[in-house]
């Protein structure tokens, strides 16, 4: 459809513009910081905008792919327990003192436990050597997730005040990245993961029709589902390691973009990656500029996302994913 074409290119063009706008925003005032005089400020803003882009792109792309694989409009990057696994990893790193070994300790710990959580969920769901059904995946995701959450709550309850504060601050999510190298590595993982998921677009298109139908159309269903879950978890875990838990981006952005550019994943994935990145960078810029005190960006996305989520649920009653 012609109008979808137009909005697709509009999204592609508007996202860099929004990212540039974010560079102009900051507590130091509106405007592009001078390269010679305010170099530090400019680098700081570049760092944050890039972090917003990477984390937003990762969460949104993972969300869109999980919605296709699980054929469920309420799926999002954390649905298979990645968030609770990462949270547990972060808490362990803080409480064991492992995080004192450098800026990489906490992200790596969170990343590893997130991946381990997916492995456990997948193994639990695929009993007796058969490919896991969608329902068993979602169900074991929920169960593993709540086990991890209660372990996390236990760790928080026994943690000293200082440690508890660190864990909570991390769980709220923020884009203040301590290490440039960490940001670069994460960007690399996310870029590669998003590219891989984009290349699998025909798979996601066909899987949306049902896994058996995708099979009839010539898709290797087990391979595609496995690769999709792995890549989506990889980029989600990388993003969570970088920024902590930022909610709702991975749920809202896929739905908004599906309305704007249509459900064809060949266009949806680039649109979601760029649009999600720009959205999160903008939320972050607003969070540290417009409001009197800087609030964690995860709070703002959830505040925007909550009402949207309710509206989505109401529309869902029409028996389709908002069209």
């Amino acid at each position: 459809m012609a109008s979808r074409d137009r909005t697709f290119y509009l999204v592609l063009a508007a996202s860099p513009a929004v990212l540039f706008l974010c560079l102009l925003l900051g507590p130091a005032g509106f405007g592009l910081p001078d390269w010679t005089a305010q170099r530090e400020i400019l680098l700081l803003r570049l760092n944050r905008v890039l972090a917003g882009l990477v984390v937003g792109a990762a969460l949104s792309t993972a969300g869109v792919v999980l919605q296709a694989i699980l054929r469920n409009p309420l799926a999002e990057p954390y649905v298979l327990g990645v968030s609770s696994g990462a949270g547990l990893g972060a808490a362990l790193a803080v409480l064991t003192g492992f995080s004192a070994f450098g800026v990489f300790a906490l992200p790596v710990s969170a990343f590893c436990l997130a991946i381990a959580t997916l492995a456990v969920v997948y193994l639990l769901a695929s009993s007796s050597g058969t490919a896991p059904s969608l329902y068993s995946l979602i169900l074991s995701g929920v169960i593993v997730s709540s086990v991890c959450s209660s372990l996390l709550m236990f760790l928080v309850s026994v943690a000293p005040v200082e440690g508890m504060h660190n864990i909570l601050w991390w769980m709220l999510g923020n884009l203040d990245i301590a290490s440039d190298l960490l940001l670069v590595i994460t960007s690399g993982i996310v870029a590669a993961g998003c590219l891989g998921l984009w290349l699998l677009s025909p798979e996601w298109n066909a899987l949306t029709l049902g896994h058996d139908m995708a099979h009839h159309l010539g898709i290797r269903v087990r391979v595609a589902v496995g690769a999709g879950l792995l890549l989506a978890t990889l980029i989600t875990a990388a993003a969570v390691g970088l920024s902590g838990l930022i909610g709702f981006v991975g749920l809202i952005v896929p739905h908004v973009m599906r309305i704007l550019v249509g459900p064809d994943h060949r266009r949806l994935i680039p649109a979601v990656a760029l649009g999600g990145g720009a959205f999160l960078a903008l939320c972050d810029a607003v969070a540290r500029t417009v409001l009197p005190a800087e609030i964690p960006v995860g709070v703002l996305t959830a505040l925007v996302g909550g009402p949207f989520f309710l509206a989505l649920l109401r529309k869902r009653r029409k028996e389709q994913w908002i069209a």
Partner: protein
Amino acid sequence: MTRAIQIEGMSAGYRHQPVLRDVSMAVEEGEIIGILGPNGAGKSTLFKTLSGWLAPLSGTVSVFGTPVHRLPPLERARRIAVVPQELDVPVPYTVEEVVMMGRTASIGRLSRPAAADRQAVERAMVYTDVADVRARPLNELSGGERQRAIVAMALAQEPRILLMDEATSRLDINHRLEIMQLVERLNEESGVTVLMISHDLQLAAEFSRRLIMLNQGSIVADGRPSEVLTEAALRQVYRCDVSVREDARTGSLSILPAPRTRAARSGNGRRVHVIAGGGCGEEVLRRLALSGYAISTGVLNRGDMDAEVALALGAGLVTEQPFSPIGESALRQALELALSASAAVLTAVPFGTGNLANLTILERFLDMGRPVFVAKGIETRDYTPHREAMARVSALLSRGAVLWSNVAELAALLPDSPASEPPSPETGNPGSAAPLPRLPAVKSPDPD
């Protein structure tokens, strides 16, 4: 020429409970075959293994000489297309997008569809009459339009084998015929091999040159429609009575519920006494109740499955203590109840010393000149020490009792002329109540 489909000794289904057992069949390229059979016969499992979605538990399934599960997926999609009964599409794909997905196997990753792809999609949409709605989301269309778009998607695959799983059952008669004519034409022009599962026997007979009938996981008939769709075979497989007539002018078959079944459906409240037990009488009791007979049964032990069924159906019932042999008084009561019925039926119930007394009821029926119907195979169900049950049933048969082998046959045998009606049974008898429990009538709320 290699065969389009070759199945040898295949079992398929669940690991511990195969749905299909040791099935072998061969299909030449260019055939149109109707797959028939009652629910649960294994038709869908057959399609799932043919399409490679389900691996066979044993045996082989080959398509054009290659085992299906060894075909590379893209190659398989170019050979076999499946039209499901319905497709749930949760996101708002347009019709054209969905039909284009039929080309998944031939469009390169991320590249635009080639001219050949566009042409195949266009042709499929025109053929199935969905070109006008191409830009509309599939899930906004009517059921018929949606189904035609799904047929279009399968046609866009340009397959050599088309598997249609009740693909037209949700279409109106006009589009049903159109789709079938389209399939016939594809078959004639491009030699596409078609297998279709259908519950519409007549449609299957009309458009197939060969029918395969499945029942309980095996092929029970395979041949031309007139060979497969016989009244005897249909009664055996579907357990209901139908009449098959060949139109003298066109030679096409018409399949209708048999007139005598329809007559039997109005049992007019005539009563039949059923000797049952252990769940063996369940089907007979249900079918007779549905056909409008009043039913009574007994003697049964309390808590017996058939006793539960009889209670649910509102049948007259005489019971004995659980796990006890039939006593004097229960038998007397049963005789009283039974002898106001116009016929008696012996179901496929096993006999031991405990329930042997029930045969007395049947003997009294014959004494009074009323018909008795006996299920075949008493020799396999006699657990009395001296084969007494067999001897007494043989005696019944020699005195004029009639054998039956399935419920449809029994329904046809039962008397339906009012002449055979015995003197009107005394009122207040539980067995003469309406055969099905009636729900209280709902009172209309608006005053009239």
